[in-house]
């Protein structure tokens, strides 16, 4: 493995030396990409950032038309949130900007998804692009405070962000003051209500929000949570305009996107691709070690797709048509040398352990699912086990306060469909020759069925 490709999603303790590649697609303005500045200069400092991009177009004092202009530019760009929900960013901004009182802009760099490394890469390589985006969004909202949240196991990233904040404090680049906080790492800690709960001094667990249109609040004032990649895109769109953003990707899903590719590939890492690039093209750049059998899209709470659909463009709508999701921008490659059922069992076990422990269907349902899958993978499931598993998937779906159990249900359902041949074989008590091969998911350990 070449020395430049050491990034794995769980390399929490090693400093990030990410494998980064840009889209070398002709016609895409390299300068206006997320990672262009890093590729050109390999320096995350403010001076290097400004030399590459120039200063961000923040409002001048008394410039009253700025907010309207920024909102229009953002809307014209068609940017959608890159944290997982793919919600139009201009709409999200408008929902909160119409409220009164002092607003907090929260930069969500929690990266609870173990197979994602893009927050770490952005904040390590181009921290000022993210902070520019945060300042622009804060000005657009009339926010009085920016809080960057980096998980507490990402000390290097945290230190890098603090350094970047110090570099720009007291300059015209920081009209809204920036704080950096590190909530405890956990899969659900980056869920926006969980993040806001922690910022309010609470436990950092998701809340039950039957009415999602009501804005989240921090000390009774509105809070808007944005993903790091979304904000970095805003910084580019404000500088180079919506046309530049739309020069990559399609009309339906414009722009570039960061994708963390891992699994059975020689060059795992974070890649900046044009939205709509075929899955095959994205994956081939990372050199799969064997024929691709399946791909986990959208992370641990995402969805498996078969290796037969690699011609599908990487974008929310085309992926949805083949049962996949963009989510937070994750692809995990599985070859025929792995057992998809065993891998799914490991994922389910991990996700069960990451429950916030608040809702019964998640607390009891996910470990039961993981047990069922483990027995299935090991060929020790009894008669009727598959039906029970399907019933338990349905019982988890949509029954928690947050969408953690829904994600697991989706991922397991997709596995039962994509790996249906293996599922049938294992149900017939034929265990898998690959069942106890090392997982393509780092640090997942050996398969076990849990305590009966």
């Amino acid at each position, binding site marked *: 493995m070449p020395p430049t490709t050491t990034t794995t999603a769980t390399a929490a303790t090693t400093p990030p030396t990410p494998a980064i590649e840009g889209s070398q697609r002709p016609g895409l303005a390299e300068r206006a990409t997320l990672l262009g500045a890093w590729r050109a200069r390999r320096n995350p400092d403010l001076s290097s950032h400004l030399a590459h991009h120039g200063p961000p177009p923040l409002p001048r004092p008394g410039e009253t038309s700025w907010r309207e202009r920024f909102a229009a530019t953002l809307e014209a760009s068609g940017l959608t949130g890159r944290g997982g929900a793919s919600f139009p960013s201009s709409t999200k901004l408008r929902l909160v900007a119409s409220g009164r009182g002092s607003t907090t802009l929260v930069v969500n760099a929690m990266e609870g998804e173990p197979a994602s490394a893009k927050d770490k890469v952005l904040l390590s390589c181009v921290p000022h692009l993210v902070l520019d985006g945060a300042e622009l969004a804060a000005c657009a909202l009339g926010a009085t405070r920016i809080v960057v949240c980096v998980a507490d196991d990402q000390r290097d990233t945290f230190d890098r962000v603090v350094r970047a904040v110090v570099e720009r404090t007291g300059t015209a680049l920081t009209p809204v003051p920036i704080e950096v906080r590190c909530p405890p790492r956990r899969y659900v800690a980056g869920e926006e209500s969980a993040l806001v709960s922690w910022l309010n001094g609470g436990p950092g667990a998701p809340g039950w929000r039957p009415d999602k249109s009501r804005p989240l609040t921090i000390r009774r004032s509105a809070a808007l949570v944005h993903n790091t990649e979304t904000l970095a895109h805003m910084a580019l769109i404000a500088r180079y305009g919506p046309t530049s953003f739309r020069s990559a990707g399609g009309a339906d899903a414009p722009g570039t996107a960061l994708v963390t590719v891992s699994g059975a590939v020689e060059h795992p890492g974070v890649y900046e691709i044009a939205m709509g690039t075929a899955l095959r093209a994205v994956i081939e750049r990372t050199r799969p070690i064997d024929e691709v059998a399946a791909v986990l899209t959208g992370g641990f709470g995402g969805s498996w797709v078969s290796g037969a659909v690699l011609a599908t463009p990487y974008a929310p709508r085309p992926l949805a048509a083949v049962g996949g999701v963009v989510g937070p921008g994750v692809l995990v490659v599985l070859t025929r040398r792995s057992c998809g059922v065993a891998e799914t069992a490991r994922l389910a076990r991990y996700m069960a352990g990451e429950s916030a422990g608040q*809702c*019964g269907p998640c607390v009891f*349902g996910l470990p039961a699912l993981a047990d069922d899958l483990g027995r299935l993978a090991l060929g020790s499931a009894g008669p009727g086990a598959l039906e029970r598993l399907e019933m*338990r998937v349905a*019982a988890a779906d949509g*029954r928690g*306060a947050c969408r953690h159990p829904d994600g697991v249900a989706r991922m397991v359902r997709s596995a039962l469909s994509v790996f249906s041949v293996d599922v049938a074989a294992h149900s017939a008590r034929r265990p898998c020759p690959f069942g106890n091969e090392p997982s393509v998911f780092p640090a997942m350990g050996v398969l076990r069925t849990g305590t009966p």
Partner: protein
Amino acid sequence: MTSVIKVDPIACDAYGYCAELLPELVTLDEWGYPVVDGGPVPPHLVELARRAAKECPCRALLLERGADR
């Protein structure tokens, strides 16, 4: 006016009173947590639903009245 019942999954502790009082609309999963379909409550069950919500020891069953949508 339509009414719907909702379960606050964080508050719910699986006492199961709701399924006893309102079996027409609430079933229990294998761990005793209520499953509701989220659809409108038929008018003849509204009073029972209100009582079920009132009797929940965790106040986790909510009867919400909303305008017709």
